[in-house]
Structure formats: structure tokens, C-alpha cells
């Protein structure tokens, strides 16, 4: 365990930013956003960022390959560039867990090289929560906000920042920062208890997941509650585009006039053309698309990943759905 006094926090950031880009949550006009640290940047105290850190590893748009077409001949150009190193500071426990969920998809064979190179060059410094809010329910998915994962876990007491490396990348980073002092391992315990008492009082603290999981597939699929739950869903993609664990993407071509760029972009199972193909669409009604989204998070993903759920309880979909329909209401309706 290492530590540094909060008075020297800016020097700490400067030291980290000396050798690589450092991103941390900064207060914007309407909510915290990850932005590049520069001299004088003040870290946000918000409970979490508006937009998750997924963008650093799985950006909304990225070019896969470029083609030059002349006459009958095609040239393929591999446009991948090695990502330079970067550090993301201030990631909460829920977002840190979402990287593991994305890893299980993109780093499974065949490895997605775009995602893998970003993941290798990115170091994640998590920060335990200070004031979780009512839309947080990470506890329901077995995430302990007091012990956030990531390469380095940090706790912020009133006077100092405590850092503990969890992976070699974390060890290497902390070792390279001579500014840090040693601290004994249970220095963060008081901070953890303080957080634990708040976590127990969270309104959604007792949300249970035992009526979900891989083995309840057909029962949940054929439940008659999906109609009522999805009746006012607008088929926009907000819940999927703010979600840190949504993995789906679309591959499209763009004709730039002097070649064709094949790019990948986030896609949403809520959109009507998600499963549209030449002979029709297997999910025609909004109920089916709505059901697919929550079945994937609560049943299909656990079935394929021995019980790990596809949701991390960050609460972003609770805040941003235009009609306030979300996974918590779905779980409570389908319980028992």
C-alpha cells in the first residue's frame, strides 16, 4: 500500500502525466466527464461520470480497414496504429468491473486486436466511492464498492490518497512514481467501513438476482410481463449507449470518394434494424427487442460466463432513459 497527502495531489497527477496521458473525471457544465489532465485541472467530486470509461477501450467509432478500389482490383490497407500508453484515474468499482465483462467478450478467441491493444496500453486506477447515490446497485451484482478492482485501487481519506497495486501494470506504475510514500496495508480500513455503512442504506441495496441467471432462460423468455414493461419504450438507443457493459457493434462502409473506409460503431439491440436481413427481421416488435436487451444482461451473458451477470449496477440507464424504464424495474417486475 502506498500513499500521498492530498495537498500534493497535483504533483501526483503531474508525475503520472509525465510519461503518459492521464485522464480523470472533470466537472463539465452538466456532469463529470473524463478529460485529459493538464496543469491546473481539478478532479470532480461527482459520484460517477456521465459517460462511462468504456470509450477508452471500445470507442463509439473506429476504422477497421481501408480499401482502395480501382476497376476490378481491391487493395486492403490495415490502418491499425499501436496505441500509446495512458492512465485512467478515478474509475469507480462498477465501471472497473465492466472492463472485465468486455474482456470476456473481446479478448475471447479470436481476440479483437483493436480492443486488446488499447487494453494493454491502458492502466486503470480505480477510486472507491465517497457518496454513492440512490441509483447505485452494484452490490446486487456482487461488486464491493469499497474494494474497487482495476490495476491500482485507491481510497481517498480526508487527508491522503491511498494506493494499492493489484496487477503487474499497477505495480510498475506505482514503482515508477517516486513521489509516493509507504503506508501500512490496513490504512484504508476506516474508509472502507465508512463506505460500507452507506452501502447498506442504499435504497436499491437489497435488489436480488436469484430469480435470474442462465438456467431460467425459457421461463423468463416466455413471461407475460414483457408486454407491459415495454409498452412505452421509444426504441431509442440511450440505455445501450450509456451502458458500460454493452458490447454490440455494427460494421459499415463509408465511401470517402477516394476509397472506402470500413468502420465499426456501437449498435443497439433496441434499434429496429439490428436483426434486419434479406428475408426479414427475427425481432419485429419492440417487445422482442426490449426483451432481448434484458435477457442478454440477466440470462444469456450469465449462461455463457458461468453466472457472472452482464450488468454492473452503475445506474446510468436509470438516469438517462427518456421514459424511466430500466433494468431495476424489469428485475423487480420479473422477480419471483
Amino acid at each position: 500500500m502506498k500513499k500521498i497527502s492530498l495537498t500534493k495531489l497535483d504533483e501526483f497527477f503531474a508525475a503520472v502525466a509525465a510519461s503518459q496521458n492521464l485522464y480523470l473525471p472533470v466537472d463539465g457544465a452538466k456532469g463529470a466527464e473524463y478529460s485529459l489532465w493538464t496543469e491546473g485541472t481539478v478532479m470532480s467530486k461527482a459520484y460517477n461520470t456521465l459517460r462511462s470509461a468504456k470509450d477508452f477501450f471500445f470507442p463509439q467509432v473506429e476504422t477497421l480497414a481501408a480499401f482502395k478500389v480501382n476497376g476490378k482490383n481491391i487493395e486492403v490497407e490495415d490502418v491499425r496504429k499501436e496505441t500509446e500508453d495512458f492512465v485512467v484515474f478515478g474509475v469507480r468499482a462498477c465501471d472497473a468491473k465492466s472492463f472485465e465483462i468486455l474482456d470476456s467478450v473481446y479478448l475471447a478467441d479470436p481476440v479483437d486486436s483493436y480492443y486488446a491493444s488499447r487494453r494493454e496500453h491502458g492502466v486503470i486506477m480505480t477510486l472507491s466511492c465517497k457518496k454513492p447515490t440512490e441509483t447505485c446497485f452494484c452490490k446486487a451484482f456482487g461488486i464491493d464498492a469499497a474494494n474497487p478492482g482495476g490495476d491500482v485501487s485507491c481510497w481517498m481519506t480526508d487527508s491522503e490518497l491511498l494506493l494499492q497495486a493489484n496487477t503487474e501494470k499497477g505495480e510498475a506504475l506505482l514503482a515508477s512514481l517516486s513521489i509516493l510514500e509507504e503506508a501500512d496495508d490496513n490504512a484504508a480500513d476506516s474508509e472502507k467501513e465508512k463506505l460500507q455503512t452507506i452501502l447498506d442504506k442504499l435504497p436499491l441495496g437489497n435488489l436480488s438476482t436469484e430469480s435470474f441467471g442462465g438456467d431460467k432462460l425459457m421461463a423468463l423468455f416466455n413471461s407475460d410481463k414483457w408486454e407491459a414493461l415495454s409498452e412505452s419504450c421509444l426504441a431509442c438507443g440511450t440505455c445501450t449507449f450509456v451502458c458500460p457493459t454493452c458490447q454490440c457493434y455494427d460494421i459499415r462502409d463509408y465511401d470517402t470518394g477516394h476509397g472506402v473506409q470500413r468502420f465499426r460503431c456501437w449498435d443497439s439491440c433496441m434499434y429496429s434494424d439490428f436483426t434486419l436481413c434479406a428475408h426479414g427481421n427475427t425481432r419485429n416488435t419492440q417487445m422482442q427487442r426490449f426483451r432481448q436487451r434484458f435477457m442478454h444482461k440477466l440470462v444469456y451473458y450469465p449462461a455463457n460466463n458461468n453466472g457472472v451477470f452482464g450488468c454492473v449496477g452503475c445506474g446510468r440507464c436509470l438516469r438517462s432513459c427518456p421514459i424511466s424504464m430500466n433494468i431495476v424495474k424489469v428485475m423487480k417486475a420479473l422477480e419471483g
Partner: protein
Amino acid sequence: MQEGMVKRASELLADGTVVRVLGWKNGEFVYDPTPAVFESVEALSDFVYNDFCASNLSKYLVALSKKEGKTLVFLKPCDSYSFNQLLTEHRVDREKVYIIGISCDGKVDESKLRAQGAEGVTGIATDGDTITVSTLYGDVQLKKADVIAERCVTCKSKKVVAYDEMMGENGEENPDCGRFDQVAALEAMTPDERFAFWRNELSKCIRCNACRNICPACTCEQCVFDNPKSGISQKAAADSFEENMFHIIRAFHVAGRCTDCGECSRVCPQHIPLHLLNRKFIKEMNECYGEYQAGAEAGSRAPLVNFTQEDCEPSIVYTKEASK
């Protein structure tokens, strides 16, 4: 207000005038009601109407008026303008809808609530115009006027313009509501400042289409953005140009039909002030072609599908700029 609505709805359901009631049902916390359809008097026990029922229900009537039987709907003043606009475009069947107009003195904006310290909300109680928010970290007392949504602060009219029955007395238009002040402030900026302002705002867009799917004026069966041949990718701003193009075209397609209900800005997960684009079109049309309020009365011709011989030339944009 809520009890009166539930009582009236139960009567209309019981005597068969309507087959279903379109309203809101309560959520996990007080501030997250969901639009819902109630088809029986017992179901109405979940019905809720409070300061957070801000969503505009008229767009749901496009689908509901295609179903069998009449639908009862409660329309706030701004929703009724959208209903009239949908009526003008023959998207809703007037006979299939029974409207109860409800007066409205402004809805609370959840993000304003949060900005003033309401994090970790466990309960919200409103009495008169003070709102007490009990949270995990102590209670917060707020005056309703401080947390009213911006669109309600500059509310253009408290008058329900389409109803079969009115609960409470109807309000009036409010011509000098100052809804164009922010637009004027932006117009007063230099082009570089404006470009920087809009680049900063529109670059936050994640193309989730919430603004398009909530908008009561956007009811095309297949949107131009959904057509892969249009060259505009529906799901991704692959370049900063696409962000500008998406929002210019989205605002353009509702120009003259937008009733300024403010839903697009309410639902934007990135809190981009999208209504400032729509209001710019409305302000420009009022100045060039005379005052016009979409949805004021059904059947009126919108400015962009109308013309006079004496319209100004497009070059007015250059001369007008010089004067400001």
C-alpha cells in the same frame, strides 16, 4: 390533482366512454414515473401525477388511436399543441381520443434538483412551492421555482388548446415569456464564438436518437437516418461533420412543425441544449414570415409549406447579421 384525475378516469372507464387510459405509473423513486396505459379501474391504483410527470404523451396517441376503442389522455398545455400538430398531419384520429386538459404550473427538472445537492435521494415531498428531498446525506429544502425546468420557466402558453373536458380553469398564452433570449444571446456572439459553442455542445452527442424518438413532430415510419442509402450513418458520428449534419437536419425536418415542447432537451442523456436549435428556426420564421405557433390550431399551414410573393430574399441572413 392526481385524485381528481383517477376518479374521473375511473368514471369514464366504468361507463365505457373510453377503453384505456394513457397516463403515468409510479417508478422506483418519486422522480421517475413511466408513461403507461391502464385498461381497468383496478390498474389505476398505480396511476400517478406529480411534478415529475414531464413527458409529452401525445406521440403515443399515434399508435393508440389506431387501436380499437377510445383512449383517454391527460394533456398538459404544451402536450396539447403537439396533439394539434399531429392532428394537422393526420397522424392521430381525433374521434379515437378523449382528452382531459390539465393545467400545469411547471415541471421539476431532475438535473437541476441534483445540481442543488439532491444526491442519494430516498424520498421527495412537495407542499405548496417548497420541495423537501430526503437523502442518504441529510435533507435538502428547495424552492420549486429554483428547480423548475428551463422550458417551463420560459413557458410559451399555459393554455390547453385541444380538449374534450378541462380540469381546473384553462390558462393563457404568455407572449413575452423570454423563450428566445438565449437564442438572441447566441446570435449576438461572433461566428467563431458560436462555432466553438456548438462544436463543444454537439461533440458530446452519442447519437442515441432519444431526441428524435421522443419528439412528437418526428413520427415518420422510416426516418431518413435509418435509410442506409442516405449516406448518413444512423448510429455513429463517424466525423464531427456528421454530428452537425444530424442535428441540423433533425431540427430542419421539424421546422415549422415544432411546438417548442422542449422534450428533446429534457431527454438528452448528455444534456445538450437541443431546443436552442429548434427555437432558432421558430424565431427566424417569426421574424421573416410573421408570428406562427405550430399546433395553435389544427389545420394551419406551417411557414415552410407556405409562401407569399413578398418573402424576403435568403440574402437577408447577410444583411441582418450586419445590423446585430
